[in-house]
């Protein structure tokens, strides 16, 4: 299973991507020379400390922001604006509060000009996939955080997305809900054979979920290293193999933080 994934055709190619922001005190370089290729069906975690530009990278892939230099291509076609092929799940859900759970999920299908019957069918399928059929008529304000994030996931799935972009989606949830949703996400990923790019700052979450962890370093954001996670699923967080990998990834993550600190004075002088 893993092997076919690794050799599958690339769905997303990020090529020498740079991003600078104009701030009041000059330009701030957020990303420098990012190169990344992601295969169809792969589950990739972007891991890094806050400020390493991992969210910015995801937002550029989503088309919400533009690269200063370089390109993002999906199936070989450059992207420069949001599209249904890349579905984003935000940390703060971004559900439409005036729509019920069912209407939120059918928002995409309806706007893509699908027939009413077709849209309703798709909606029901994903409603039940995330286990919210009983809550279909509720409004977002009547849901818990975990349920809201389920709706957000179903909303992009119903839109027939190719790449699921997730920006610290479980960051605002309590530990129990988070681990439940992580489990469900893996199930969904396996049944739908989606490609997932998942941004997180939690080493454990990255090692638990990903086929491959891309560790990013900050100031400016770069790809530090890529670590393949060849663990059987479902993964056991208490197993020695899991912990060995977690230690490896943590070392990669902290090495550049320490290095970054010693870098700073040198750069200033």
């Amino acid at each position, binding site marked *: 299973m893993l092997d076919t994934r690794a050799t599958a055709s690339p769905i997303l190619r990020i090529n020498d991507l740079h991003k600078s922001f104009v701030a009041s005190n000059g330009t701030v370089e957020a990303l420098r020379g990012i190169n990344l290729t992601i295969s169809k069906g792969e589950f990739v975690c972007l891991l890094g400390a806050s400020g390493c530009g991992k969210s910015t990278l995801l937002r550029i892939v*989503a*088309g*919400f922001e533009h690269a200063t230099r370089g390109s993002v291509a999906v199936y070989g076609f450059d992207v420069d*604006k*949001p*599209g*249904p092929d*890349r*579905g*984003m799940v*935000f940390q*703060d859900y*971004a*559900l*439409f*509060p*005036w*729509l*019920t759970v069912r209407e939120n999920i059918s*928002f*995409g299908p309806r*706007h*893509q000009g699908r027939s009413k019957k077709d849209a309703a069918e798709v909606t029901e399928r994903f409603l039940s996939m995330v286990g919210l059929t009983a809550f279909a008529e509720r*409004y*977002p*304000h009547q849901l818990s955080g975990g349920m809201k994030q389920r709706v957000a996931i179903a*909303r*992009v799935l119903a*839109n027939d997305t190719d790449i699921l972009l997730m920006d610290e989606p479980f960051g605002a949830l309590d530990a129990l809900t988070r681990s439940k949703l992580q489990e469900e996400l893996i199930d969904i990923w396996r049944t739908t054979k989606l490609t997932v790019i998942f941004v997180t700052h939690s080493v454990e979450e990255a090692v638990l979920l990903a086929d491959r962890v891309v560790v990013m370093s900050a100031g400016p954001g770069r790809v530090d290293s890529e670590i393949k996670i060849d663990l059987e699923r479902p993964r056991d967080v208490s197993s020695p193999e899991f912990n060995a990998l977690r230690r490896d990834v943590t070392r990669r993550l902290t090495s550049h933080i320490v290095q970054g600190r010693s870098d700073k004075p040198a750069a200033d002088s």
Partner: protein
Amino acid sequence: MSIQTTMAEPPAKTSADATTAQKPSGELKRLRQLALAAIVPVTMLVVWDVMVRWTGTRLVPSPSGVAVMMWDFAFGGIYDDAYSKSLPIHFWKSVQRVYGGFLLAAAAGIPLGLMIGRIPLLRALLDPTLSLLRPIPVTAWLPLSMIFFGLGPKSAIFLVFLGAFYPILLNTIFGVRSVDPRLFEAAEMLGCNGSRLFRSVVFPAALPSIFNGLRLGAGFAWILIVVGEMTGVPEGLGAVIMDGRTLSRTDLVITGMIIIGITGFVSDRILLWINNYFLRWSPQHHA
């Protein structure tokens, strides 16, 4: 004078508290709320009555005098003068003008506000002019509006329109500007863009603010109808108050005030009910 102006409010207070009392269950609780709400207006009526008797003034009628006038105004049979039984026609004329002007203001203010809020070019083009015109009190337009529209109802409708237009417009713009940008991103990623964004995201997201504007606008409309109708229209509640002033019939003036107060209150309740229906997804916008 201060007694008269405050008299238009108490009925509003009574029922306002009565409706909020619907939440906690139990008839007893509701009754208690009603009783609490009634204390101030009843006290004011008593003070009013005592003051009129004590000072022996002939300029201000007693509450019972106003009550008799109201009965005659509505059903006739007491004074049988020009104002007996004339409430329906005055009321109807005023309501038509208020809602005519108000609906015009909503029809112009909401779409314009949505576009100004969302399209930077339009904002740059219109915002400075609107900001310059806005501080001008609507009543200052009265002479010009009489020149433009003549002495008559059109001039009153224009004033009502102007008065209701700005709160509706500004609140709509504010509503659009304060929509969480994530929602636009979410909509675009789901394949909704261009003009469809207005219907599917901008309008519903700005709706709480739009309703604030509508309620404010409707309030101003009732204020301005009186000014508008004081200028040479024969019928309308504003005209009645103006006539009452000219004829030194304070009972007629107070009657007109109370009726406008009650109508304005009921009209706000109706808007609120519509508000609560359309904003059922947002409990913090329920009033």
